[in-house]
């Protein structure tokens, strides 16, 4: 059962790729349907886990990755259904399928330690994950912007020219998505800070390790710096277009690094 979302995410990725290459509308609808099915089955699994342990399954990196995939899938489906633009689906669904390998390999739910029994913890995780999902979309928009930009600059109009929306649309959407992500990141970090100060007296060694020196927290702060700069640069010094696209790609690479390698191997504060 826990493999079903993985299979559906992977099939959706294949269908999006086929749609991108062949531009057949019915394949496009199939891709959307498959992704919808994947998110639905994923919702079911998260629901089952919630019933099983009595709280939202957000404890530990694996659960966080799973929730991130779920949020990104929902956010992407929302964007696709409101804009009728499927070109981003190739990259997004590939990312979803790839990341879902982690929860698929490790389907168990971690128990919630006493120290995490606070609504602030749930809010912190959800805000952070939503911010990361936004940054993932921004990265995809940035990558496609650069691909299209290169084709137009090189005066060789071909593959991407026929398939992607205009540079302006990609750029404006990138700006919006980063703004949304930044707001949630700020909220997430702030709530995290408040919560960490509340649990300083807890005997849990992980609560003791909550400080800006911990890799996970440090890298999150670096992310906040990068996206703050991206927003500032867009508004104040006109870093739109290609520079904004590169920044959003760079930002998301840092997010991914923080998520998987740092989250699993380096942090002492977030290894639940």
């Amino acid at each position, binding site marked *: 059962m826990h493999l079903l979302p993985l299979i559906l995410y992977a099939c959706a990725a294949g269908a999006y790729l086929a749609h991108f290459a062949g531009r057949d509308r019915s394949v496009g609808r199939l891709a959307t349907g498959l992704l919808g099915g994947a998110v639905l089955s994923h919702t079911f699994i998260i629901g089952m886990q919630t019933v099983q342990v009595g709280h939202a399954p957000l404890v530990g990196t694996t659960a966080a990755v799973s929730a991130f995939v779920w949020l990104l899938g929902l956010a992407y489906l929302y964007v696709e259904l409101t804009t009728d633009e499927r070109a981003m689906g190739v990259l997004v669904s590939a990312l979803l399928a790839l990341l879902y390998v982690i929860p698929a390999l490790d389907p168990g739910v971690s128990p919630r330690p006493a120290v995490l029994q606070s609504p602030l913890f749930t809010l912190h995780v959800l805000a952070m994950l939503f911010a990361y999902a936004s940054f993932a979309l921004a990265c995809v928009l940035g990558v496609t912007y650069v691909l299209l930009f290169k084709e137009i600059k090189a005066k060789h109009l071909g593959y991407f020219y*026929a398939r992607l929306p205009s540079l302006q649309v990609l750029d404006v959407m990138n700006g919006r998505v980063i703004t949304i992500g930044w707001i949630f990141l700020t909220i997430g970090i702030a709530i995290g800070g408040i919560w960490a100060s509340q649990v300083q007296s807890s005997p849990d060694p992980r609560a003791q390790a909550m400080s800006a020196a911990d890799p996970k927290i440090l890298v999150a702060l670096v992310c906040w710096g990068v996206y703050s700069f991206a927003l500032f640069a867009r508004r104040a010094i006109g870093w739109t277009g290609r520079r904004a696209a590169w920044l959003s790609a760079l930002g998301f690479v840092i997010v991914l690094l923080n998520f998987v390698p740092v989250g699993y191997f380096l942090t002492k504060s977030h290894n639940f």
Partner: protein
Amino acid sequence: MTTRLFAVGLSHRTAPVELRESVDFSRGGPGEALAALASRGICQEMVVLSTCNRAEIYAVAGPDGPDTIARFFADYHQLPLARLSDHLYVRRADDAARHLFRVAAGLDSLVVGEPQILGQVKAAYAASSDRGHTAAVTNRLFHTAFGVGKRVRRETGISEGAVSVSYAAIALARKIFGDLTGLNVLILGAGGMAKLTGIHLKAQQVRQITIASRTLAAAERLARELDGRAAPWGDLADALGAADIVITATGAVDPVLTRAGVQEVMRPRRQRPLFIIDIAVPRDVEASVGDLEQVFLYNIDDLQSIVKENLTRRSSELERAEAIVHEEVENFTTWLQSRDIIPTVVALRERFEAIRQAELARLEPKLAGLPPEARARVDEITKLLVQKLLLTPTEQLKSVRDDSLISTYSDALNRLFALEDEPPARGESARKARVSPLRRD
């Protein structure tokens, strides 16, 4: 009794432009040619398609129809028939359908896949249909053609990519800016090319067109024509700063826009993209301007090579488009042939229905005592009985494809059921199935 569908016409493939210009049915409005043709009383159904690249008449008429229509081509335009006859082509039955389907799909166009022709075919059909000159065959023929046109455009890449320089430029602008309606356009130069491009951009409903030329009077003249604004040459830098799209078409020998000059205006623009289209020969814009971030520079050669690539890509889609046309022609031909037997089928049904009615009338005294529900039941049962009896023969008849077999069957049925002896009164449904009589407007 075979339905004779055919097309007579000339196009850019068979006639030089001078001849095409003198054979123009659209001159007197869509109704005039139709009325003139109808007054000859030779066609049961007709559609006149007249564009700048073709003049064609699709008609359903008797065996001498093609000749009469060829003569109509000559008479209507007051040309000797001998001047036309070498350029006219006649397509019959399935060939006529294939021809129209290819035309509607843009496969027979001068620029393969061009989108206008489908609209022109629709307008020609509507003009004829509104005046009552179309019926079963042309209705089906043209509606199928519209479907073929749409299908070919949807399922193949035949209409993809701009195939003229101005459309290529506009498509590019759309890929950079998305929506063109809020954009400012600056045109440098006030000559013929500048004007032509200006007209194209104006049609895209850009926000404002500014024209700058070394002679302000010329700029003002063009600005009036394009509803734009003239800017003195000295204010070029300001105008450039405000523009999103710049068209350069001056006769200058030296570059008008230099890298240093454009770089200067890009800074206060804060990276807002600038699309420069250099259609001047020799070039108005230094090539290195295109290296600047957020500046997209295309010259006329670049646009032409895009057009050439698109044309190549379109022609590689031809095979798939022809396959769609072929499939639809097969379907249409099957339907067309099955129609030849229809008058016999209709007569047979009417004969059976007449017998049923006669028998019911004869039994009237015996049925009079029955309650109304039982009467209705009797009526229903007899109707069903007739329908059942005729179902298989009708299907069998409609599936006959061979012309000679159709006439053999018709003859046999006519004789066996004495269908021609005593024509029964025609029911409403029978009248609908028949070709409407020619209207003489």
